[in-house]
Each structure stands twice: as C-alpha cells, then as structure tokens.
C-alpha cells in the first residue's frame, strides 16, 4: 500500500530503449538571467510587458519539450512552493510583475503533486492583491511530463 507524501515518494520510470529524440542540439529558449524567484526583479527589462512563465522547479525536467512548448517567447521565473522560504516575497514580486512590469500574461506550470498547487495559490494571491488584472493560465504536468490539465484561472 502506498503512503506518505506524493511529492517525495520514490518512483522510477522505466524507458524501453528511449523515445525518439530530434537529432542534433536543441537550442535553449531561455532569454534572460537570473531566473530564480528570489533573484529576479520585477523591474528587469525582460519582464516589461512580457508573457511570463512561473515554473515550479521540477517542471522543466519532467517535460521533454518545456523550452519549445512553454518557454519560447516568454520571460521566466522559477520557484518551489514546498521548499523555498520567505514566500511572502514571492507574492510581492508577482504583484510587482502585474502592476509595475505590466506583464501581458502569466502561465503557471506546476507538477501534479499536491504541494505544487501552492505556487498557483501564490500567483492567485498576488493577482487578487493587484490593482491591475492579467490573464493567468495554469498548466499541471504529470511526473512523466504529460500535460494533465491546462486552463485559465479565475481571479
């Protein structure tokens, strides 16, 4: 019988010889640095008027095509809602992205494990506190990188 936190349960995903991958190097779609939520500033030029992805730390590793499907053409911030400290700073920074950087949209990509929902919660908390509203999309990714749900969140 399974027990314990689904976010830290040990699992392996056997691969039968490895799926087909494109030949040659796949270019990165990252257009900025830094990316970690404690290090980024809403006043950074790459956030101004941008479409922003707020990714849970594990998502880009789980999704084979994160760069082409979600990062391309967008600015990025990453965070872990389970392990990161001082998350009230995140709420303020997100509010800064909505109000000051006047971002165009926010896509929050999270893992299917329950603790990851906290990241979407932080984004919605910031949106609620913000005087400027922006469309927020949530994408829930399975442990093996499939998109389980993609929908627009209600403020």
């Amino acid at each position, binding site marked *: 019988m399974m027990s314990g936190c689904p976010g830290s349960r040990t699992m392996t995903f056997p691969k039968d010889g490895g799926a087909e991958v494109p030949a040659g190097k796949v270019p990165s779609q990252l257009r900025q640095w830094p990316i970690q939520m404690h290090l980024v500033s809403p006043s950074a030029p790459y956030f101004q008027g941008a*479409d922003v992805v707020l990714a849970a730390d594990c998502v880009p590793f789980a999704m084979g095509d994160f760069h082409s499907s979600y990062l391309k*053409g*967008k600015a990025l911030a990453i965070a872990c809602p389970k392990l990161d400290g001082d998350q009230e700073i995140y709420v303020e920074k997100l509010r800064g992205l909505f109000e000051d950087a006047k*971002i*165009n*949209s926010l*896509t929050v990509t999270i893992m299917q494990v329950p603790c990851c929902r906290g990241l979407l919660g932080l984004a919605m908390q910031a949106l609620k506190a913000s005087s400027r*509203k*922006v*469309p927020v*999309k949530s994408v829930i990714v399975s442990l093996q990188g499939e*998109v389980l*749900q*993609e*929908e*627009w969140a*209600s*403020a």
Partner: protein
Amino acid sequence: MEKYLRTPIKEIIGKHPPVGALLEEYNIGCVPCSVGTCLLADIVEIHNLSPEDEGRLMARIAGIVAPGRVVTLPEPRNLRPEASRKLSYSPPMKALVEEHRQIQRFLAVLPAVLDRFDARSEADRDLVRGGLDFIRSYADRFHHAKEEDILFASFDPGLDILKAMREDHERGRAHVRAAGEALARCDGEGTAANLRGYAGVLAEHIKKEDEILYPWMDRNLSVRQVGELFARFAAVDERFAEDRKKYESYVVWLEHATTESISEVR
C-alpha cells in the same frame, strides 16, 4: 471525399438535404445559417468533435454524398486531449460570455413587455424606447463593438464563420432600426414584430458564439493574444464603466417592473 471537404456547406445541403439533418444530429446547426459559405472541412474542425464522432460523421456524410462508392475518409485529425473539448473560456472570452448573460436576461423579459405593449400609451412607448436604448448602447455599441473592432480583428477577416457572425449583427441592427422607425409612427405591430425578430436573431447568435465560436477562438489564440485582448477589453470597460453600470441596473429594473406588472394583471 476531399472534393466535398472543400465545398461550401450550403451547396452540399442543397444537393444532399439529409446532410443537413445529419449535422443537426451532431449539434452542428448549419441548416438555419443564412450565409452557408463555410467549407465542410472547416465546420468539422470548428466544432471540435471527438475523433470517434468525427470519424462516424464523415463516414455517414460519405454514405449520403457518394452512396455505394468506395471513398477515402480523412484521418480524424483530432489529437487534442479530451480536456480541450470541455468549455473553459479564457478571461477575455469569459467577459464576453458574461455580457451575453445580460443581453439574454433582457431578451427573456422582452416578450412580456411586447405582449402588453400599447403603442398609443406614452408610458409603453417609453418602456420600449428604453429597451431600444439598451440594445443600441449595451448590446451593440459596447459588446458588439468589442467583438467586431477587437476580437474579430485578431483573426483573418475573410473567415466564413466571422462573415456569418457579422451578418447576424447586421440583421439584428436592421431589426432595431425598423423597430425604432415603427415606434416613431406609433405602429405597435411593426415595433413588436421587429423586436421579436431581433430577439430571435440574437438568441441563436449568442448560442453560436458561446458554444462554437469562442471555444474555437480560444483554441487558436496564443497566450500573447489572450493577454492583449484582455488589456484592450479592459480599456473599453474603463471607458464604458458608468454606462455599463447604468444598463446592467436597467436590466434588473426591467425584470422587476415586468414581474410586478404580470402579478398585477393576475
């Protein structure tokens, strides 16, 4: 089959009327459409059927248009997950759907207003003038302008589905113009007939937009476009904020006024 996929739907229904009934069975309401230039392939795509339903529909259409012949059916191209077939609007589409709810509330009380409308009564004429003002200002200048000037402009203006929607708007406007003219000459029957005509056009039009057009647009808009539409709609909302409150209050007032007058009659 490829030839039929690239044929306007009215032409197919004209030559093979059972295709119209079959489309109705799949809730694809092309028969009453006054334009009908959409291609069969686009109609199937726009309605986002499951791969199974799409396969069955195409096979049955082939049985009608080419009975007894061996035809090559297109592969169901629907690779989207089941979740994308559920109605979940993006924020700008959701705002338009909420505006539709206001218009539908108005349309729901309109028959009661028209049933007891006496064109000789100044009070009744005022009531209908108020309704025409709601239609012209809220439904047309605010809501339809958002659609035509902003939303539709995000897509190829030559798309048949957009031509059909614009034509619905024009038919609605023609009814409203005619109703206003009839009211000015105290022609009660003309006023009521045109307002009922308007209600018929709008009710069907709103259903098409809520269930077919907006979900299709949402599937085809990028996140960037959704954000831009949201911002442009917000700017219109801000400009129209006071009027919007006024017209939404008007709908509530009209609902109460109509309910009370019906109770009085009883």
